[in-house]
Protein backbone atom coordinates (compact mmCIF):
# COMPACT_ATOMS: atom_id res chain seq x y z
CA UNK A 1 0.00 0.00 0.00
CA UNK A 2 2.80 2.31 1.03
CA UNK A 3 4.65 1.43 -2.15
CA UNK A 4 1.62 2.17 -4.32
CA UNK A 5 1.10 5.51 -2.63
CA UNK A 6 4.76 6.45 -3.07
CA UNK A 7 4.69 5.61 -6.78
CA UNK A 8 1.40 7.45 -7.12
CA UNK A 9 2.98 10.50 -5.50
CA UNK A 10 5.84 10.35 -7.98
CA UNK A 11 3.60 9.81 -10.99
CA UNK A 12 1.16 12.60 -10.17
CA UNK A 13 3.98 15.02 -9.42
CA UNK A 14 5.64 14.01 -12.67
CA UNK A 15 2.44 14.53 -14.66
CA UNK A 16 1.97 17.98 -13.17
CA UNK A 17 5.55 19.01 -13.81
CA UNK A 18 5.58 17.59 -17.32
CA UNK A 19 2.27 19.20 -18.18
CA UNK A 20 2.75 22.57 -16.53
CA UNK A 21 6.48 23.00 -16.58
CA UNK A 22 7.00 23.30 -12.87
CA UNK A 23 9.53 21.63 -10.66
CA UNK A 24 8.11 18.66 -8.87
CA UNK A 25 10.28 18.70 -5.75
CA UNK A 26 8.11 20.83 -3.50
CA UNK A 27 4.84 19.16 -4.50
CA UNK A 28 6.47 15.80 -3.83
CA UNK A 29 7.32 16.96 -0.31
CA UNK A 30 3.74 18.03 0.40
CA UNK A 31 2.20 14.87 -1.03
CA UNK A 32 4.63 12.65 0.86
CA UNK A 33 3.67 14.31 4.13
CA UNK A 34 -0.06 14.19 3.40
CA UNK A 35 -0.29 10.68 1.96
CA UNK A 36 2.58 8.78 3.49
CA UNK A 37 2.78 10.38 6.88
CA UNK A 38 6.55 10.80 6.81
CA UNK A 39 8.38 13.58 8.66
CA UNK A 40 9.23 16.88 6.98
CA UNK A 41 12.92 15.93 6.99
CA UNK A 42 12.39 12.51 5.40
CA UNK A 43 10.06 13.99 2.76
CA UNK A 44 12.61 16.66 1.83
CA UNK A 45 15.44 14.13 1.65
CA UNK A 46 13.42 11.86 -0.66
CA UNK A 47 12.42 14.76 -2.92
CA UNK A 48 16.01 15.99 -3.16
CA UNK A 49 17.17 12.53 -4.19
CA UNK A 50 14.32 11.96 -6.64
CA UNK A 51 15.20 15.23 -8.40
CA UNK A 52 18.65 13.93 -9.39
CA UNK A 53 17.76 11.44 -12.18
CA UNK A 54 15.11 13.78 -13.59
CA UNK A 55 17.55 16.69 -13.65
CA UNK A 56 20.24 14.56 -15.30
CA UNK A 57 17.85 13.54 -18.09
CA UNK A 58 16.92 17.18 -18.61
CA UNK A 59 20.54 18.32 -18.67
CA UNK A 60 21.42 15.71 -21.28
CA UNK A 61 18.60 16.92 -23.51
CA UNK A 62 19.49 20.59 -23.07
CA UNK A 63 23.19 19.94 -23.58
CA UNK A 64 22.47 18.37 -26.95
CA UNK A 65 20.56 21.53 -27.86
CA UNK A 66 23.55 23.60 -26.78
CA UNK A 67 21.65 25.42 -24.05
CA UNK A 68 23.92 24.65 -21.09
CA UNK A 69 26.61 27.21 -20.27
CA UNK A 70 29.09 24.84 -18.64
CA UNK A 71 31.50 27.50 -17.44
CA UNK A 72 28.75 29.11 -15.39
CA UNK A 73 27.57 25.69 -14.24
CA UNK A 74 31.04 25.23 -12.74
CA UNK A 75 30.93 28.52 -10.81
CA UNK A 76 27.31 28.06 -9.76
CA UNK A 77 28.14 24.59 -8.53
CA UNK A 78 30.96 25.93 -6.36
CA UNK A 79 28.52 28.28 -4.67
CA UNK A 80 25.78 25.68 -4.84
CA UNK A 81 27.72 22.98 -3.02
CA UNK A 82 28.67 25.40 -0.21
CA UNK A 83 25.09 26.68 0.00
CA UNK A 84 23.68 23.17 -0.18
CA UNK A 85 25.94 22.03 2.66
CA UNK A 86 24.96 24.98 4.83
CA UNK A 87 21.25 24.84 3.97
CA UNK A 88 20.85 21.14 4.57
CA UNK A 89 22.93 21.24 7.77
CA UNK A 90 20.62 24.02 8.96
CA UNK A 91 17.51 22.04 8.00
CA UNK A 92 18.70 18.93 9.79
CA UNK A 93 19.41 20.65 13.10
CA UNK A 94 16.10 22.50 12.87
CA UNK A 95 13.01 21.43 14.74
CA UNK A 96 10.46 19.77 12.45
CA UNK A 97 7.66 22.23 13.22
CA UNK A 98 9.89 25.20 12.35
CA UNK A 99 11.23 23.55 9.22
CA UNK A 100 7.64 22.99 8.09
CA UNK A 101 6.93 26.71 8.48
CA UNK A 102 10.07 27.65 6.53
CA UNK A 103 9.04 25.20 3.82
CA UNK A 104 5.55 26.66 3.68
CA UNK A 105 7.00 30.10 2.88
CA UNK A 106 8.85 28.69 -0.13
CA UNK A 107 5.77 26.72 -1.14
CA UNK A 108 3.69 29.90 -1.08
CA UNK A 109 6.33 31.53 -3.29
CA UNK A 110 5.98 28.70 -5.80
CA UNK A 111 2.20 29.14 -5.78
CA UNK A 112 2.48 32.86 -6.46
CA UNK A 113 4.97 32.25 -9.25
CA UNK A 114 2.60 29.71 -10.82
CA UNK A 115 -0.25 32.19 -10.64
CA UNK A 116 1.81 34.94 -12.28
CA UNK A 117 3.06 32.73 -15.09
CA UNK A 118 -0.46 31.50 -15.80
CA UNK A 119 -1.46 35.11 -16.46
CA UNK A 120 1.64 35.71 -18.56
CA UNK A 121 0.52 32.84 -20.75
CA UNK A 122 -2.83 34.56 -21.23
CA UNK A 123 -1.21 37.76 -22.44
CA UNK A 124 1.07 35.88 -24.77
CA UNK A 125 -1.85 34.07 -26.29
CA UNK A 126 -3.66 37.30 -27.01
CA UNK A 127 -0.63 39.07 -28.39
CA UNK A 128 0.98 36.31 -30.35
CA UNK A 129 0.57 32.90 -31.89
CA UNK A 130 0.05 29.78 -29.80
CA UNK A 131 3.48 28.60 -30.91
CA UNK A 132 5.00 30.94 -28.34
CA UNK A 133 2.75 29.57 -25.69
CA UNK A 134 4.10 26.07 -26.07
CA UNK A 135 7.60 27.40 -25.92
CA UNK A 136 7.07 29.27 -22.68
CA UNK A 137 5.70 26.16 -21.00
CA UNK A 138 8.80 24.28 -21.94
CA UNK A 139 10.98 27.14 -20.76
CA UNK A 140 9.52 27.16 -17.30
CA UNK A 141 10.26 23.53 -16.80
CA UNK A 142 12.87 24.58 -14.24
CA UNK A 143 13.28 24.11 -10.52
Amino acid at each position, binding site marked *: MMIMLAILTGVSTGILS*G*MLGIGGGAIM*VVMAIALLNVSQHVAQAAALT*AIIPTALTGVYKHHRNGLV*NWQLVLYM*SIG*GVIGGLAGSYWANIMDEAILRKVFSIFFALIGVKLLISSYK*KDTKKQGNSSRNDNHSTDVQN*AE
Partner: protein
Amino acid sequence: MGKNFKAILIGLLGGLAGGLVGIGGGIIMVPLMVYSLDFSQHSAHATSLAAIVPISVISASIYSFYGNMELNLAALFAIGGIVGAYLGSALMPHVKANILQRMLAIVVIAASIRMGLDL
Protein backbone atom coordinates in the same frame (compact mmCIF):
# COMPACT_ATOMS: atom_id res chain seq x y z
CA MET B 1 31.03 42.50 -10.04
CA GLY B 2 32.39 39.83 -12.37
CA LYS B 3 30.12 37.37 -14.04
CA ASN B 4 31.78 34.38 -12.41
CA PHE B 5 31.52 35.90 -8.96
CA LYS B 6 27.83 36.57 -9.53
CA ALA B 7 27.43 32.96 -10.64
CA ILE B 8 29.02 31.73 -7.39
CA LEU B 9 26.66 33.94 -5.36
CA ILE B 10 23.60 32.74 -7.29
CA GLY B 11 24.69 29.15 -6.76
CA LEU B 12 25.16 29.85 -3.06
CA LEU B 13 21.63 31.22 -2.69
CA GLY B 14 20.11 28.42 -4.76
CA GLY B 15 22.02 25.84 -2.74
CA LEU B 16 20.98 27.37 0.58
CA ALA B 17 17.31 27.38 -0.36
CA GLY B 18 17.50 23.97 -2.01
CA GLY B 19 19.21 22.29 0.92
CA LEU B 20 17.00 23.99 3.47
CA VAL B 21 13.62 23.06 2.02
CA GLY B 22 14.50 20.13 -0.21
CA ILE B 23 13.80 21.67 -3.58
CA GLY B 24 16.28 21.95 -6.42
CA GLY B 25 16.90 25.67 -6.04
CA GLY B 26 15.87 26.53 -9.59
CA ILE B 27 13.06 28.78 -8.41
CA ILE B 28 15.74 31.03 -6.87
CA MET B 29 18.45 30.65 -9.49
CA VAL B 30 16.52 31.03 -12.75
CA PRO B 31 15.16 34.55 -12.09
CA LEU B 32 18.51 35.71 -10.69
CA MET B 33 20.30 34.42 -13.78
CA VAL B 34 17.86 36.16 -16.08
CA TYR B 35 18.11 39.49 -14.26
CA SER B 36 21.78 39.65 -13.34
CA LEU B 37 23.54 37.49 -15.91
CA ASP B 38 21.44 38.36 -18.98
CA PHE B 39 20.44 34.77 -19.59
CA SER B 40 17.43 33.93 -21.72
CA GLN B 41 14.75 32.04 -19.76
CA HIS B 42 15.45 28.94 -21.77
CA SER B 43 19.17 28.82 -21.27
CA ALA B 44 18.89 29.89 -17.61
CA HIS B 45 16.61 26.93 -17.07
CA ALA B 46 19.00 24.52 -18.79
CA THR B 47 22.05 25.84 -16.97
CA SER B 48 20.38 25.91 -13.55
CA LEU B 49 19.24 22.33 -14.03
CA ALA B 50 22.89 21.30 -14.40
CA ALA B 51 23.79 23.15 -11.18
CA ILE B 52 20.89 21.47 -9.37
CA VAL B 53 22.59 18.08 -9.73
CA PRO B 54 25.59 18.76 -7.43
CA ILE B 55 23.38 20.78 -5.06
CA SER B 56 20.97 17.86 -4.69
CA VAL B 57 23.74 15.29 -4.35
CA ILE B 58 25.50 17.18 -1.55
CA SER B 59 22.24 18.08 0.22
CA ALA B 60 20.93 14.52 0.02
CA SER B 61 24.20 13.28 1.54
CA ILE B 62 23.77 15.60 4.52
CA TYR B 63 20.17 14.45 5.08
CA SER B 64 21.44 10.89 4.88
CA PHE B 65 24.19 11.64 7.42
CA TYR B 66 21.52 12.80 9.86
CA GLY B 67 19.52 9.60 9.33
CA ASN B 68 16.69 11.18 7.38
CA MET B 69 17.18 9.31 4.12
CA GLU B 70 14.72 6.63 3.10
CA LEU B 71 16.21 5.44 -0.14
CA ASN B 72 13.25 3.19 -0.98
CA LEU B 73 10.94 6.17 -0.83
CA ALA B 74 13.31 8.29 -2.93
CA ALA B 75 13.62 5.54 -5.56
CA LEU B 76 9.84 5.13 -5.82
CA PHE B 77 9.44 8.91 -6.18
CA ALA B 78 12.06 8.99 -8.88
CA ILE B 79 10.55 6.11 -10.86
CA GLY B 80 7.05 7.53 -10.54
CA GLY B 81 8.35 10.99 -11.40
CA ILE B 82 9.98 9.87 -14.64
CA VAL B 83 6.90 7.93 -15.76
CA GLY B 84 4.68 10.86 -14.81
CA ALA B 85 6.82 13.38 -16.65
CA TYR B 86 6.45 11.40 -19.88
CA LEU B 87 2.68 11.15 -19.39
CA GLY B 88 2.53 14.85 -18.57
CA SER B 89 4.42 15.97 -21.67
CA ALA B 90 2.22 13.73 -23.79
CA LEU B 91 -0.89 15.27 -22.25
CA MET B 92 0.40 18.84 -22.49
CA PRO B 93 -0.96 19.63 -25.97
CA HIS B 94 -4.42 18.49 -24.89
CA VAL B 95 -4.91 20.66 -21.83
CA LYS B 96 -5.32 24.34 -21.24
CA ALA B 97 -2.09 24.79 -19.34
CA ASN B 98 -2.86 28.25 -18.00
CA ILE B 99 -6.18 27.22 -16.46
CA LEU B 100 -4.66 24.11 -14.89
CA GLN B 101 -1.74 26.15 -13.68
CA ARG B 102 -4.06 28.65 -12.06
CA MET B 103 -6.02 25.91 -10.33
CA LEU B 104 -2.83 24.31 -9.06
CA ALA B 105 -1.56 27.74 -7.91
CA ILE B 106 -4.62 28.14 -5.73
CA VAL B 107 -4.21 24.65 -4.27
CA VAL B 108 -0.52 25.32 -3.61
CA ILE B 109 -1.17 28.67 -1.93
CA ALA B 110 -3.96 27.18 0.19
CA ALA B 111 -1.75 24.25 1.20
CA SER B 112 1.11 26.58 2.12
CA ILE B 113 -1.16 28.68 4.32
CA ARG B 114 -2.48 25.54 5.98
CA MET B 115 1.05 24.26 6.60
CA GLY B 116 2.41 27.59 7.72
CA LEU B 117 -0.36 28.28 10.21
CA ASP B 118 -0.62 24.68 11.38
CA LEU B 119 -4.33 24.50 10.62
